[in-house]
């Protein structure tokens, strides 16, 4: 038994060395053979990297929304496309926020911390002298807004309870607004024109980047709710932001808020609610079909190129077996068993595939690195799991494609092979 193991070890070492010699001696052929595998592995790793990148970028964006904030809104984020169901629901009122806060205050075991109202519009514009910004996101809220938001201030301060209560014409702006309107001048204390009203800038948010690459938090102007209503009226899109105590108890918190809102809206038990409670994780489930689509396409492309690659390797291994018939005969004459020959050719095909796989991973690494340098904001990441998976796939390809030729080689008749010209 022990002797058998030693023999196996020595034989596989010998086969490994022979495989190296063989590949070294036929560099061009080995490269061409490995090309299919290289392409396959580049495809698999690129695709995986893209999916990872999307995931990571998405997480980064969701972090902006805040993991511990849930929203009371007219429609749901998860079941889009059913607008007719939500259209006739009553609008969310900003007064719900103080009502919710009173209920939270009366319940010491509440999983909720605070509710903050917000009304907003994407159609705002802001002006300073001859500089004008369109498509600004304007948002009216109260002094507690910062507790439910991820951004913090780079300059100045947020508006106070007094300013909020008095509906003062003051605002805090995002970084893009500040730099867009005041490229050279100081920002704080300046008066900007929103519609036909003048607002004083109290503070500037730190730059945050885009949410899902679409919507920018740096493009917003935040003002007291009363001031917002004076400019835009009361009919704008309203939601209630509610901060919860623990992310881990998200479901309970949503349940509690659901109960509170049903009380406020006076919905009879058993009736369907006419509002929705949303959390940022809902977006994630929206992303899954896209990710799956990319994955399916990736697996298809990878599968195709690996299949072609495997056929190439099988073909070339068959040629190699033919060319080395005498060597096989000799090895058998010297005492090589069937499994020894089988192992030798399997090791060769696996090694070619593995070299192809490593090259493929190297190419992807180079591309991701180059892309990272060119477009630093593009979220990409080549994970260790992915590298491991692609190398495993390479080895598997080698085994599958090498099997048939290796079996053929192992079954060759030693006497005939020795005489083969």
């Amino acid at each position, binding site marked *: 038994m022990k002797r058998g193991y030693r023999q196996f070890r*020595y034989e596989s070492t*010998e086969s490994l060395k022979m495989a190296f010699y063989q590949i070294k001696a036929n560099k061009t052929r080995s490269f061409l053979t490995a090309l299919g595998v290289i392409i396959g592995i580049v495809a698999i790793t690129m695709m995986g990297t893209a999916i990872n990148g999307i995931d990571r970028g998405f997480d980064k964006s969701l972090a902006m929304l805040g993991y511990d904030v849930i929203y009371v809104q007219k429609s749901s984020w998860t079941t889009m496309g059913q607008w007719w169901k939500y259209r006739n629901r009553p609008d969310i009122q900003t007064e719900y926020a103080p009502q919710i806060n009173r209920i939270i205050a009366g319940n010491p075991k509440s999983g909720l911390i605070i509710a903050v109202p917000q009304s907003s519009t994407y159609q705002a514009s802001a002006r300073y002298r001859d500089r004008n910004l369109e498509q600004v996101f304007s948002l009216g809220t109260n002094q507690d807004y910062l507790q439910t938001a991820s951004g913090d201030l780079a300059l100045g301060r947020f508006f106070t309870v007094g300013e909020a209560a008095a509906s003062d014409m003051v605002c805090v702006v995002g970084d893009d607004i500040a730099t867009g309107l005041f490229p050279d001048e100081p920002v704080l204390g300046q008066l900007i024109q929103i519609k036909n009203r003048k607002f004083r800038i109290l503070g500037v948010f730190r730059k945050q980047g885009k949410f899902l690459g679409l919507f920018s938090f740096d493009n917003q102007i935040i003002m007291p709710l009363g001031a917002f209503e004076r400019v835009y009226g009361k009919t704008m899109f309203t939601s209630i932001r509610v901060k919860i105590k623990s992310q881990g108890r998200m479901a309970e918190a949503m349940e509690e808020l659901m109960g509170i809102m049903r009380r406020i809206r006076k919905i009879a038990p058993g009736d369907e609610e006419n509002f929705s409670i949303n959390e940022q994780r809902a977006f994630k489930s929206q992303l899954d079909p896209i990710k799956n689509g990319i994955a399916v396409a990736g697996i298809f492309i990878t599968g195709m190129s690996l299949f072609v690659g495997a056929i190439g390797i099988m073909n070339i291994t068959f040629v190699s077996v033919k060319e080395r018939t*005498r*060597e096989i005969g000799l*090895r058998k*004459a010297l*005492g*090589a068993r069937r499994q020894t020959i089988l192992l030798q050719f399997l090791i060769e095909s696996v090694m070619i595939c593995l070299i192809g796989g490593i090259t493929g991973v190297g190419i992807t690494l180079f591309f991701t690195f180059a892309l990272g340098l060119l477009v630093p904001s593009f979220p990409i990441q080549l994970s260790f799991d992915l590298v491991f998976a692609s190398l495993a796939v390479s080895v598997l390809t080698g085994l599958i494609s090498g099997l048939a030729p290796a079996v053929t080689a192992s079954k060759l008749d030693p006497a005939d092979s020795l*005489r083969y010209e």
Partner: protein
Amino acid sequence: MTQKAMITMQSLCKFYEMGDQTVKALDSINLDFRLNDYAAIMGPSGSGKSTLMNILGCLDTPTTGVYELNGVNVAEMDDDELARIRNKEIGFVFQTFNLLPRLNCLRNVELPLIYAGVDPEEREERAVEALVKVGLGERIKHKPTELSGGQIQRVAIARALINKPSIILADEPTGNLDTATSKEIMTIFGELSDAGNTIILITHEEDIASYTRRVIRLRDGKIESDSRR
């Protein structure tokens, strides 16, 4: 000298099916070889000497009959058992040398020991010893392409000796060599025989056969004559 036979062949036959015809390559061969025999098997092409050599070397099995090697009937063994027998009991020397061109002399010679599961240190030691024995102690790191034909065949002989086989089987060992080199190789075989080895040569050259102590002539798959001197 009555000695137990090392190899015994009894009514050994090898038939090949060629289309609807049966070719009798070997027809009822009865043959013994004893320890330290030094024999030549001769015969014209088609006489069955290659087939006999294949069966003697356990590269092939007979269709019917008995082939006992050291008291073991080889005729009924499977492929892997035959491989083990070839590895342990038989040292091959070929007309075309059959060294692996990419390996140096040392690595070529130690190849059978790898299949025998001998550890690397002992492998190298024994390979060097075998190469010294055939007079190539200076060239152990050379590749076959850097050697002359006679030297290559000596490496092959070293490889055949390495596992201390029961028999050395040489198939036209001088067939690709000139007269002077042939003489050189036959001298080595003579020395090996004097050292107690059992050697069987396949040849069609009378002067090569004249080096041996026993000549077996085959014709049409049958033994025509078997003479000792």
